[in-house]
């Protein structure tokens, strides 16, 4: 239970950072932290105390009750790849914004109003 709460706390840390930070790079990092917390959560769901790797072998037998759940691990791989793409896109946008505005401060990046 503590682990779950800590993961949720990490999620909230990310959300807090994304909302309150003024630096573009810190916002990108905060969004990354949110993503990691959800990945951790997915891995925690799959974990089972004392279970083995989910590979069917002859010596260990084929008892799914003794294995960790392999599905969330597959999901986490996909979601890590998606987050990599998002982070790369956000960083590219931040670099282009720096070229145009010459600042990383979000309060100075505001030509859109209304």
């Amino acid at each position, binding site marked *: 239970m503590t682990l779950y709460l800590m993961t949720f706390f990490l*999620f909230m840390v*990310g*959300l807090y950072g*994304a909302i309150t930070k003024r630096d*573009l790079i810190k*916002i*990108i990092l905060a*969004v990354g932290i*949110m*993503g990691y917390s*959800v990945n951790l*959560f*997915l891995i925690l*769901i799959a974990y089972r105390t004392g279970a083995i790797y989910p590979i069917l072998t002859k010596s260990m037998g084929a008892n799914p009750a003794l294995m960790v759940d392999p*599905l*969330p691990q597959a*999901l986490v791989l*996909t*979601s890590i790849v*998606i*987050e990599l*793409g*998002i982070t790369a*896109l*956000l960083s590219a*946008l*931040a670099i*282009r*914004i720096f070229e*145009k*505005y010459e600042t990383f401060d979000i309060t100075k*990046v*505001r*030509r*859109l109003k*209304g």
Partner: protein
Amino acid sequence: MIIPYFVIIPLSAAFLIALISRKKENIAAGIALIVGIVLTIMSIYSFILLSKNEGAIYYHFSNWKAPVTISLVLDYLSSFILIIISVISLIAIFYSLQYTNHYTGKWQYFALFMLMISGMNGVALTGDFFNFYVFMEITLFSAYSLVAFGCEAEELEAAFKYAIVGSISSTMILFAIGLLYSFTSTLNMADVGRVLLNEKSKVIYLVYGMLIAGLGLKSALVPFHAWLPDAHPSAPAPISSMLSGVLIKVLGTYAMVRIFFNVFNAPQIFLQIMLILGTFSMVIGGLMSIMQWDIKRMLGYSTVSQIGYIFIGIGLGTPLGILGAIFYLLSHSIFKSLLFMNAGAVEYALDTRDMRQMGALNKKLPVTSFTSMIGSLSISGIPPFNGFFAKLIIIIACIQSAHPIYAGWAILVSIITLAYYLKMQKHTFYGKPNFKKIYEKVPFTLKTSMIILAGLCIISSILIIPGIKEVTLDKVTQVILDKTDYIEYIRPLIMGGK
């Protein structure tokens, strides 16, 4: 089987464009146009095909059994959404042919456009939660890039905001999916619904909250709307019309209806929240758009306002309310695309978006002026056009289900809508000329696409004539009203598997 090709064709077209047409950009446009036509024919054919297949067709990846594998589900609601996506994107591609003359890297534009279509088709078809998340990310990824396509300072700023808000909401949705998986041990939407029918837990309210926040951010409901008036106007005009006309409805409205009605059996708390948020969106979006002078920004706030109508119809939960929401979804995708294309044509000719630097354009740009008038009348609800019937159905549904307050708000906002569109007409196409000069004529494909959409504004009204309504809109409404009938198909498959 026709279903997987809705994703395969645009996806392979995107990579084909990136591979072969870097130097020859006309080939990129040609491929995009062919894909648009093929998808339109396929989506209309799929609607006809459904009547022969008892209203639902399933496709299971790799021929595994249903709850284990990813399944694609085509029913009337998906098919209806596919038709909207295909028709609007075909017209937007046709509009882009000459509109993109101002941009460099045409092939990148069309490749991203194809990627966006494949993602949206996937979202409309998928029957699996994680697959839904993946297709949603594909759509959003190309949408962020397309918003920033012009690489001007404002466009980059808007794209950055959109990308941050979009990834926060996606993370929330993934968190909700993780919670659902831990509770039900399955990711198949129908199977999740089946488990939830029997077992209740308090954790489901956390899932509701995360999904309403996540999907609400996607569909720009007030208080989650702040990114939309920045992001949608900053994109190139055909992309604005795709984002405002189709994308927020597929990722927001459709996903919400599918998940909350067909999987969660329309919980009362969800309907209440939708009514309240819908009213707030309607009123605040309407009031904000009166104050705008940027023509596309005004249309962006107008989208926030009009999306409120759809959610009020959904929140009522009555057959008439759902019918109104469905018809308004269709109508709004037509006339909002038209209005964004009008704004794009004006921007193409004058190189400005400020309404104070326009005026008396009805002589100079007659086609744009005429179609924009039709779009404005349609969105403000003037009788022969589709917007009138859609708003009327929603207002009648409000009164019928004993919610006269919401009906009052809907009528009031309809008047506000008329006010700001009259303001747009007066300052843009009538009144005194304030523009410096007309740089370029509006090209052929821009005019043609605007005329087609203006025609659709009138033609789509026939969908609610009794007789035609029974075979089109009523079947879509029935899918939503049947609620958890959606999960029935999974039962024989599970029984057979064990």
